[in-house]
């Protein structure tokens, strides 16, 4: 597993929190003014949802060392729980249903985290597949979850907080951005706290961690709970703010793999890495498809183009992992260090 790269990067020009504040100021102040609806609907909303899911999985896999293939199931649990809480509990504000949906996802995460007490590595990954299949099966099988809707697809409720409607593209973007920022900040605090160090201790050497007095069982389950909570809320954003419909098929195994790839490509055990990875997974295929359509759209049909994009994307990922196994975040830090060095030596 990777070391926490961010702790060893060169001294930045600005204090770290300053960069985050500027970034947030840009995201809140500038982006809503200049962005097009395409930018929000097709790029930023899936990026925020998948980035947050990546943060959640990174806590579990990157920091605590427990591999999971059930991320999409926890997203689904969060999305459907939020939908049902919103529908069935009178007077519960939207934020309340989202928080409780995270709790529901966390509870399911704890249940499916129990095998981690005995299983490790690949075996644990396979056992988390059970969550993936079970949750999807249950949501399809019992139509109560989708309010007896004929097709199993449900419309997300209107987004509004305290009477303020957030149905437009910008509103949903700000809604997602706020939740993602808060949870990311909390996750960032968590991994640098004692609990975060316990996670890392268990990841690096479980026996040693036990000997120095870390409650392994409790810590692992805590990692599952926190991770599932965050992924569950990411599921709510995916369904309510991005797609605005909820269906179990949207949370299939492919999605779980996608989130796993996000943290591997972005950088394991890095909060920023999840967003780097999500940016690559969301934006890169779109750019490639635009470029392909632009250059060769008249020559080939969209099917051939799509296939060749997959080949290019796959090849690039392989190449990238060989050249930079620590992920985009390591690449980014190295580039920044070089630039800084070049700047200082002039």
């Amino acid at each position, binding site marked *: 597993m990777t070391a926490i790269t961010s702790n060893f990067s060169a001294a930045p020009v600005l204090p770290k929190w300053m960069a985050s504040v500027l970034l947030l100021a840009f995201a809140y102040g500038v982006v809503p003014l200049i962005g097009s609806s395409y930018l929000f609907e097709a790029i930023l909303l*899936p990026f925020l949802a998948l980035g947050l899911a990546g943060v959640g999985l990174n806590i579990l896999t990157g920091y605590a060392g427990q591999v999971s293939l059930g991320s999409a199931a926890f997203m689904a649990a969060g999305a459907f729980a939020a939908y049902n809480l919103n529908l069935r509990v009178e007077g519960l504000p939207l934020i309340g249903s989202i928080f409780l949906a995270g709790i529901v996802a966390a509870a399911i995460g704890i249940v499916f985290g129990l095998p981690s007490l005995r299983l490790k590595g690949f075996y644990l990954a396979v056992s988390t597949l059970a969550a993936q299949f079970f949750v999807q099966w249950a949501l399809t099988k019992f139509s109560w979850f989708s309010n007896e809707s004929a097709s199993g697809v449900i419309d997300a409720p209107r987004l509004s907080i305290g009477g303020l409607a957030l149905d437009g593209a910008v509103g949903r973007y700000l809604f997602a951005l706020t939740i993602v920022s808060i949870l990311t900040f909390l996750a960032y605090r968590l991994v640098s706290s004692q609990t975060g160090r316990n996670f890392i201790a268990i990841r690096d050497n479980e026996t040693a961690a036990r000997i120095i007095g870390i409650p392994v069982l409790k810590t692992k389950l805590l990692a599952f709970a926190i991770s599932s909570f965050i992924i569950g809320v990411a599921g709510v954003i995916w369904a309510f703010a991005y797609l605005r419909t909820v269906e179990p098929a949207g949370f299939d195994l492919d999605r779980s793999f996608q989130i796993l790839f996000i943290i591997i490509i972005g950088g394991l055990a890095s909060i920023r890495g999840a967003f780097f990875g999500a940016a690559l997974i969301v934006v890169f295929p779109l750019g490639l498809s635009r470029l392909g359509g632009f250059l060769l759209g008249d020559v080939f049909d969209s099917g051939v183009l799509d*296939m060749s994009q997959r080949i290019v994307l796959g090849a690039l990922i392989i190449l990238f992992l060989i050249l930079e196994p620590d992920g985009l975040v390591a690449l980014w830090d190295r580039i920044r260090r070089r630039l800084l060095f070049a700047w200082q030596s002039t």
Partner: protein
Amino acid sequence: MTFLSTIKAAALSAAMIVSVALPAAHADEQYFPLQSYRVGPYAAGGTGFFGGFIDYLNLINIRDGGVNGVKLTWDECETQYEVERGVECYERQKSHAGAAAWNPLSVGIAYAMIDRITADKVPLITVNHGRTDSTDGRVFPYVFPLLLNPYSETSGIVNYIAAKEGGIDKLKGKKIVVLYHGSPYGKETIPIYELLAQKYGFTVQQIEVPHPGNEQQSQWLTIRRAKPDFVVLRGWGVMNPVALKTAVKVGYPVDHIVGNVWSNSEEDVIPAGDAAKGYTAITTQASGNTYPVVQEIVKTVYGAGKGNLEDKSRIGSVYHNLGIVNGILNVEAIRVAQEKFGHRTLTGDEVRWGFEHLKLDPAKVEALGAKDLFHSINVSWDNHEGEGYVTFQQWDGKKWNVVSDWIAPDWALLRPIIEKSAEAYAAEKGIKLRTADDANAVTTN
């Protein structure tokens, strides 16, 4: 600073690429955004349907120089039948000026688009599929499940089975199994089968096949134990040939399997080989390439080397013909709207008005060269399906043979159920029911 600005830059450059790639529509162009799928498990349906659609648009451009001089344009965006790709395509293509109508050919994508197209005021066409209660134009002004909504299809199939058994009263005590695709499309008809079973006194058992459906051993063993009189196959893509082959394996007679409108193509039966011989399926448009409009496409479009199908033997196949019929419906809606608003690029709302006045009687259908290809359509502002007729075809191992007349589904029975469902949706979403006057108020710019 960091990643968000990188994305922003990427997005801007992507936007620049596309703005170069797609010149803005001129005053005399009408654009079709095609959210097609040519790869993935449903590519057979996608290539056939969008192939037929594009072939017809090409025919109009080459033969007539467009619709009253307004040239038809389109571009494709690959969705692979996946909802989030469909949404991305929607956002990508909607910036193009002069969009006439959306045709995603996927229930999941259509559901995700309903709010969006209603806000943008551009029609969404779900020919032969879609959300049943969107038939009610009072609640869904911009959604058109043209020709056949899922409930009408169900009614048509049940009526056909009744006719085979010798009358609607003979359904009493019969047992029907519905084998459905595990997707929003597949589940759409669960309540209507239950309701018709109650009404006519047959028992129904509905069994799901998880997407994509390439393994059905356990489902067919259940069917063998249940010993139903008929099995309705509500499949899609690879699920269909696998169902037919597995039926033979467990010894269920194939001539007692009735396919629905998305289990009725050559691509569904040819891979099943002999197992498909004698299989019957419902359709709204006959297969074959003898119809004048198909012949003209062969001559004019393929003759000019502009045909869309790579495999020319698929010309006149079920999906290809459905694409052609869909092309006819879209183009005729534009024509209707042009008569009212002028021979120019129309707004989405004007095309919506065109669809709501789309009336093609059998004589008009014949004039379009599509006699017997499909029966007729009669769309109005509150009935967005348009009362399409169905027929049944049987596979003889080489081709489909029509084995029934044009049958009308039981619309009078279905309409109150559809209205109830649509009104519930309107109440949940806070939508005010539209009136005929609202339907005549058209946004013209």
